[in-house]
């Protein structure tokens, strides 16, 4: 067995890694590990005043500090019943544009582009691409200048407060922002052409669900009162939990999300896929020119979508400035007297949907829920990494796995501090399944034998289960027993280990322990077991379920158990019953 690991994922903001384990011809494990320690930000703000909360909560993430600030302000203002004037909303949106320009240009040029042109970093890249490096720098600076101007600092500014602004930008500042945005346009087009025109690899490609804020009024935008999915479904602001369904995995301090049992993606690609038709002006023209059905299933197009959004922002900034200048009065900070309430704020951070939810009681924060984009993407990042790794392994390109996983993770522009460092490929030692089994033993796993008698090696799972029962083990079931009663529900909290044959493309008798999810994600491995159990398991259970598989020699009707599979069954029984 071998593990490909990118222990410290470089060129992402934060600290994380991806690990993939290869056992022969299958990937037995893919994990997005976040080395970042637990900060308990959600607990830190409990007991604080609303003002302190909107100062501390954005400290979750430096690169999305304005998004966090806007999410926190929107949630807190909803909780406290504070209604701000249109000028305040416009100024906040302008600050938000600053963050998108800064973050997207940093990501596409400095973090992503070196991979596509073969350099280890942007500084090294500068020798061959001086123009691109310079433009990226200037765009980034411009984004930072907007944030500094409106929020007081590039990172963790405090000028945007509950109910308004501490102080207002001058007319001169605003006009400068507008003119500078217009000056950039030729370079912005160049950016779109560069990143939309890149030759993105076809691995991995797979459909997924996309989610983003519904800005309303048929507009493209970065916040709203509803969430919209690529299926057209909408989720109201306060029902956000029905989308996000947070859960934990043992290899990360970053919580995860799934929607109706399936991973989903958020971010620039989600926004363009869901709302792209609503783009206007030059952005619309570029969208029509470059958008293709591949964008819907290939996460690497996140880079293209980000470039398109840079254009959107540069078009939007002058418009916003004009609207702001049309309102000469600077509204004072709206005072509030409400001491108790709850509220949710939805915004799009550069890397996707960001949700803050607060409850305030007697003037102090009593409950906090913050759902970050990377937390929502984590499942899909793992899934796409798995798909890429398995596909490349199938094509005999094992050496390419590490770099491709790196590319996939980075495309999602993960912001590790809000959640997540990078890729590692390991080869599993022989009999790796024994180690995994031993790890699961303390949690008291339940075993479920799957198969069909009279179909050659297909009976192996049933034989295994029967052998275990004979040895006096508890919590061992046959497929049929599970179908008859509802004992699965009684097994909540225990790891589920399905005993079955799996076609791994290996020599007959090979044993491997696979996460059940891989079977869901991979059509090659898929099995009739799926319909039987999937709709009866909760997502938490699926995450904690495995398949202890044996490579069959044959599953022909009427045949008998082959010698190699029989040997494997005995090996497993010996291991388990000892």
């Amino acid at each position, binding site marked *: 067995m071998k593990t490909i690991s990118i222990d410290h994922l470089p060129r992402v903001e934060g600290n994380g890694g991806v690990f993939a384990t290869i056992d022969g011809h299958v990937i037995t494990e893919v994990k997005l590990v976040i080395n970042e*320690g*637990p900060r308990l930000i959600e607990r830190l703000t409990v007991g604080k005043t609303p003002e302190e909360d909107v100062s501390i909560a954005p400290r979750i993430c*430096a690169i999305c500090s304005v998004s966090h600030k806007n999410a926190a302000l929107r949630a807190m203002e909803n909780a406290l019943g504070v209604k701000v004037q249109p000028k305040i909303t416009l100024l906040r949106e302008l600050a938000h544009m600053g963050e998108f320009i800064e973050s997207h240009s940093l990501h596409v040029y400095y973090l992503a582009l070196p991979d596509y042109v073969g350099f280890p*970093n942007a500084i090294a890249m500068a020798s061959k691409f001086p123009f691109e490096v310079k433009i990226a720098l200037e765009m980034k600076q411009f984004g930072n200048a907007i944030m500094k101007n409106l929020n*007081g600092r590039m990172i963790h*500014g405090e000028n945007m407060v509950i109910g308004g602004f501490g102080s207002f930008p001058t007319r001169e500042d605003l006009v400068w922002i507008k003119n500078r945005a217009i000056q950039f346009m030729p370079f912005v087009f160049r950016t779109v052409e560069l990143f939309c025109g890149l030759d993105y690899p076809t691995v991995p490609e797979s459909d997924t669900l996309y989610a983003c804020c519904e800005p309303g009024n048929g507009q493209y935008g970065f916040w709203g009162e509803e969430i919209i999915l690529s299926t057209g479904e909408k989720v109201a602001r306060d029902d956000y939990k029905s989308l996000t369904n947070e859960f934990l995995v043992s290899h990360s301090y970053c919580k995860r999300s799934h929607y109706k049992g399936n991973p989903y993606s958020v971010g620039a690609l989600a926004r363009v896929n869901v709302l792209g038709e609503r783009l206007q002006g030059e952005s619309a023209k570029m969208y029509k020119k470059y958008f293709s059905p591949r964008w819907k299933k290939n996460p690497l197009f996140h880079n293209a979508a980000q470039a398109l959004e840079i254009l959107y922002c540069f078009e939007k900034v002058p418009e916003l400035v004009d609207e702001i200048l049309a309102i000469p009065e600077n509204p004072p900070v709206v005072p509030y007297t409400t001491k108790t309430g709850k509220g949710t704020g939805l915004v799009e951070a550069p890397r996707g949907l960001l949700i803050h939810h607060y409850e305030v009681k007697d003037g102090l924060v009593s409950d906090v829920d913050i759902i970050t984009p990377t937390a929502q993407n984590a499942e899909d990042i793992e899934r796409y990494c798995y798909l890429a790794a398995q596909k490349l392994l199938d094509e005999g390109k094992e050496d390419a796995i590490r770099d491709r996983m790196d590319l996939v993770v980075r495309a999602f522009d993960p912001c590790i501090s809000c959640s997540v460092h990078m890729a590692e490929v390991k080869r599993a030692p022989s009999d790796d399944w024994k180690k995994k089994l031993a790890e699961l033993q303390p949690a008291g796993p339940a075993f479920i034998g799957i198969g069909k008698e009279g179909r050659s090696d297909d009976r192996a799972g049933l034989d295994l289960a029967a052998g275990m029962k004979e040895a006096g083990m508890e919590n061992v079931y046959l497929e049929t027993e599970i179908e008859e009663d509802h004992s699965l529900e009684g097994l909540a909290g225990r790891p589920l280990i399905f005993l079955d044959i799996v076609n791994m493309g290996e020599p007959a008798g090979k044993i491997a322990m696979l996460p059940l999810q891989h079977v869901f994600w991979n059509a090659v491995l898929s099995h009739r077991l799926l319909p039987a159990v999937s709709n009866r398991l909760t997502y938490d259970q699926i995450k904690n379920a495995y398949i202890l598989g044996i490579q069959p020699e044959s599953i022909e009707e009427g045949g008998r158990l082959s010698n190699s599979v029989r040997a494997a069954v005995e090996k497993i029984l010996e291991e388990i019953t000892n």
Partner: protein
Amino acid sequence: MPKDKLKIGIYELTGCAGDALLIVDCEEELVNIFTAASIEAFLMAKSDNRHGELDVALVEGSVSTEKEKEELLDIRKRARVVVAIGGCACVGGPQAAFLDKKEWEKNLKKVYGNIEFSHSRPLQSKPIDAYIKVDCYLPGCPIGKAQFLSTFARMVNGNPPELFRFPVCVECKWHENDCLLNKDILCLGPLTLAGCGSVCPNFNVPCFGCWGPTEEANRTSEYYLLREKGFDTEVIKNRMANYSGTRITEFFEQFRKEKR
């Protein structure tokens, strides 16, 4: 100027990555940073990172897992000089504001339940000097661009850093701001290290204390002053604790004793 380029490594532990990002945000100076010194490791900006001897290690973030502790001990062994950059590395950051271990454990459980983490055991967040000797502290949440660049330039020229040790109020007066504390607004300027350029009061927003406390922070006096202005004890305590990390713990213990 030293003949050989200094070997510098930039490392991130648990935090918001804001200090590393700020270094990336040095934009036009970034090329100078990379040419003035040999940047051996900087995960956010490059993939060809080396693991070897260092002249200076810049460490961001608090120590929050067993793995980070090991990584930090390894950095200390390899580096001649260790500089803590940012509030999390200097004082532990907001995540170190839990006053005792019990409270932290309770909150860890509230967020993560009973799950056993397979990758690294969590630790209550602490500043890096809880585990290693730190030669120099660069405060800030995030660190300041001008402060970082001048410190970096001094280091590569072989000079020790020179940082402001006085409170925000001094810079605030340089900017001729009207004192917010005198307007009965809860401002932590007098207790907080300068260097940020008094950015929040310049915007008419009170200081939240994000650069961490000064050596001489007179919390007792400001506490009574704020009490007299009608602020609630808990509100004052919380506000002082937000960015003071573990530095505040000793104060509250002392305070509790004095109250008795």
